[in-house]
């Protein structure tokens, strides 16, 4: 079974269909780019897959758990990071890690070990007791990324993780994504940078609640006779 299975998933808000019968599956270790214009339904779809919003109809499982009946189980097997919400600015680096470790139910000893390992891996050991507010944005995002992986989730949801960061940090961030996917963790990522769409194994493009395109970047470019993913996106979203 695939790590994410979605079948005819639909969500209405009143008479408005935000997500309209979408179906797809994602394999372990796959990087899926989830694209769409503002308001196309990406966030609603993502909220259903992260157990935060009950669908109106259709089926979906994440790590084998059902989105209707087992949303709490889903939350334990996924990591989530967004550009807007990640770490507490008034807490230190170590305090943030301890806080999230506690939320995910890790033992005190596990948190301690993970903190040391994580900071060493990110080359941030010196920043352990600095408040998040004092860290450059690029560091914060790398840290937020690692904190989202603290409880060894099977799927990592990244909602516009690279918005606003400088071009070098943006690319370093993708190194982290590749490493994570290489360890077998599925990465589900949204972005407005079309060059980043090319870095995904497969890309889905939502238009008005429906998935209008799904495939490898190369296949989509062939399908839409486009030179770049940017062209594919504009063609679909402007239609």
């Amino acid at each position, binding site marked *: 079974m695939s790590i994410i299975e979605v079948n005819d998933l639909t969500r209405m808000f009143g008479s408005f269909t935000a997500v309209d019968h979408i179906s797809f599956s994602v394999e372990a270790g796959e990087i899926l780019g989830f694209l769409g214009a503002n308001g196309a339904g990406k966030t609603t779809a993502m909220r259903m897959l992260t157990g935060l919003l009950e669908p109106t109809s259709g089926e979906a499982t994440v790590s084998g758990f059902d989105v209707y009946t087992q949303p709490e189980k889903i939350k334990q097997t996924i990591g989530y990071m967004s550009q807007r919400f990640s770490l507490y600015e008034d807490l230190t680096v170590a305090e943030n890690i301890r806080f999230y470790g506690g939320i995910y139910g890790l033992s005190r000893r596990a948190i301690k070990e993970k903190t040391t390992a994580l900071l060493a891996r990110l080359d941030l050991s010196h920043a352990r007791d600095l408040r998040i507010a004092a860290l450059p944005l690029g560091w914060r995002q790398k840290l937020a990324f690692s904190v989202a992986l603290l409880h060894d989730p099977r799927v990592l949801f990244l909602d516009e993780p690279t918005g606003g960061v400088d*071009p*070098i940090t943006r690319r370093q961030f993708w190194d982290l994504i590749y490493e994570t996917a290489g360890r077998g963790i599925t990465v589900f990522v949204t972005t407005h940078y079309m060059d980043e769409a090319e870095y995904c194994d497969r890309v889905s493009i939502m238009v008005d609640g429906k998935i209008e395109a799904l495939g490898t970047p190369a296949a989509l470019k062939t399908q839409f006779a486009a030179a770049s993913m940017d062209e594919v*996106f504009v063609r679909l979203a402007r239609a």
Partner: protein
Amino acid sequence: MITVTNLSKHFGTVQALEAVQFRLDEGELFGFVGPDGAGKTTLFRILVTLLVPDTGNATVDGLDVVKDYRALRARLGYMPGRFSLYPDLSVEENLTFFASVFGTTVQANYDLIKDIYQQIEPFKDRRAGALSGGMKQKLALSCALIHRPRVLFLDEPTTGVDAVSRREFWEMLQRLKKGGLTIVVSTPYMDEAGQCDRVALIQEGRLLQIETPSAIEAQYNRPLLAVKAAQRYPLIQALRQYPHAHAVYAFGEYVHYTDARPTADVQALRAYLDTQSLTHIEIKPIPASIEDAFMELMHEPTT
């Protein structure tokens, strides 16, 4: 239109702007390109008279941003990075409010905003807080223009906006520029820099360069190759291991490889990659983009 001399601003121990200088002509579409935290917003807030610099001075349309702030406010339009309209007022009420604050009416200046406002007019009775992102942006732009400013400041108008809406937004700016408006815009998107007449690359409070987009690209003086293989991440890692590599960055479907030597040896690079169990290798020399140039400048020690 704008003259900035030796402008500095710090917050606590953070030097937000350091000795920033530039001049901007009337009718220019001028872009500040740099990541979050580079100082773009601080600079904008000083230029629109919302923040007083520590040292240095700045004039906009001949008026000093500190001494003449009252007179200056009537001549500039400002669209902050965060949505700053009244969410509880309707679309129309917001627009009328901003017109009345500046002592004018919507009717008097309707011609200026017509193209943009017409797109949201069907929703004029909707509360601004209930608009979609793209519509909020159009309303904010209409409100920033309704008093017919001489110069328009847009702080990251396209952050978090999808690729299609970004294009449409830049098309609107190009039309406003044709109408004679001076426009200063900031963006973290390197590809948008090409839309500007001139661009200032900004990082950590300093201007790295001010030039036309094509001049910035032309100044890139290292051999640059676009490389592709069926295996992307292994390719990036292999290129980084290559002894002559200066910089290796993913760029859409290609990886941009800059050689540390004056000229790159494409055949030797191909031979090396062939030994790295990569397939479907493609290598071609390419001209630098703004993004290549920016990353190269980020590497150079600033003096």
